[in-house]
């Protein structure tokens, strides 16, 4: 049987410059901070990140931004990191802003083989400008495209050795859906257990979505 358990160095070594990378987390909650640090260390450049936020100054994805590794960010809320604004103004980062519900639905569509979908969100607004629209039952909808990625870096609470995942409280957020939409899925977990130790009824991410499992070391602390 394939072994999915690797070091953070091995897992992140599968990445490459120019990759499109989904990164889980809402703010710092449920964000794979250990994996992000390793991307910083290995130094891949020209990355496109698909992530709800781009961290905060000095934290999380912002460290990659500040290190010049990001080319583009697709997400819903970058306002809380003023560094993003500076990079955008300086022409060093391009940004695609999407309503949060559209953002996550586009990722789900990417993971579920949906070619596009219609939503009312952003229809008739600045963000909806230029999007194909359609009137359905008297309401205006915009057509949205699926999002997929080369890599997803996600954070879970526990994995079994097969790669089944469970999350913890609101640290779940975007992680399970991103696990469905990337060619290679790398997960950072607090603990790895034996198959059968996770309740089959409570597994949120079945193992077929997971390629590499990285256990956080004690030095990584809990964020």
């Amino acid at each position, binding site marked *: 049987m394939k072994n999915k358990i690797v070091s953070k160095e091995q897992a992140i070594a599968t990445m490459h410059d120019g990759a499109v990378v989904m990164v889980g987390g*809402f*703010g*710092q*909650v*449920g964000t794979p901070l250990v994996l992000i640090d390793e991307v910083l260390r290995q130094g891949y450049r020209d990355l496109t990140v698909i992530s*709800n936020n781009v961290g905060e100054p000095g934290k999380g994805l912002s460290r990659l931004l500040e290190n010049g590794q990001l080319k583009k960010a697709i997400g*819903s*809320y*970058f*306002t*809380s990191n003023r560094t*993003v*604004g500076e990079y*955008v*103004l300086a022409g060093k980062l391009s*940004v695609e*802003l*999407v*309503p*949060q*519900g*559209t953002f*996550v*639905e586009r*990722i*789900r569509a990417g993971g579920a083989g949906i070619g596009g979908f219609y*939503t*009312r*969100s*952003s*229809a*008739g*607004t*600045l*963000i909806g400008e230029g999007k194909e629209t359609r009137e359905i039952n008297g*309401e*205006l909808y915009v057509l949205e495209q699926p999002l997929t990625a080369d890599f997803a870096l996600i954070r879970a609470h526990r994995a079994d050795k097969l790669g089944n995942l469970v*999350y*913890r*409280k*609101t*640290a*779940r*957020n*975007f*992680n*399970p*859906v991103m696990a469905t939409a990337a060619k290679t899925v790398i997960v950072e977990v607090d603990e790895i257990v034996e198959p059968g130790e996770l309740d089959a009824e409570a597994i*949120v991410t079945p193992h077929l979505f997971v390629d590499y499992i990285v256990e956080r070391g004690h030095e990584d602390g*809990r*964020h």
Partner: protein
Amino acid sequence: MADIKHLIAARAARELQDGDIVNLGIGIPTLVVEHLPDNVDVFLHTENGLLGVGPAPGPDEVDPDLVNAGKLPVTEVVGSSFFSSDHSFAMIRGGHIDVAILGALQVDSRGYVANWSVPGQAILGVGGAMDLLIGAKKVIVTMSHMTRDGEPKLVDTCTLPITALRRVDKIITELAVFRVTDEGLVLEELMPGVTLDEVRTKTTAKFTYEVK
């Protein structure tokens, strides 16, 4: 200002019904739960994946994995459930949230709201505002009646980018309560001690006045 915020929040609380599923925005909306009548229990939904948000934790009870949409620490009540963001927004956009209470920068005569793009700043965030606007069964705006610069926030047509084509249902300020109808805004209640003239002076939006 704290008094005004609580005044608005207390009035908004009276809009809620027992058992409502409620999503609260940042600011005044978060205060609403402090003013619920004794016979009204609501369930708080937060779009980052929790139904059953409880009060802020004590300093020793903070769980870094348990926050609300404002990224502030919260607690969970008995009977709550956690879910991923795709499920959470399916709830919002699918019409499963009874009431969303939001702040706003402007609301106009038609009931359109602008609450995501800050004037003079680059647009770098929208979050879940557009989704809540199109999805919630009832949308209540709670806001101060005027900007800090003394400009009316109830305007004829939003000059800031609107959040959705969906009109809000109710607007509650420290001066008055407006209902939004197909014909426009209806002032349905003056806050204690406020006169119709004062509201007229401080409001650019067209509205009709309905004596209760």
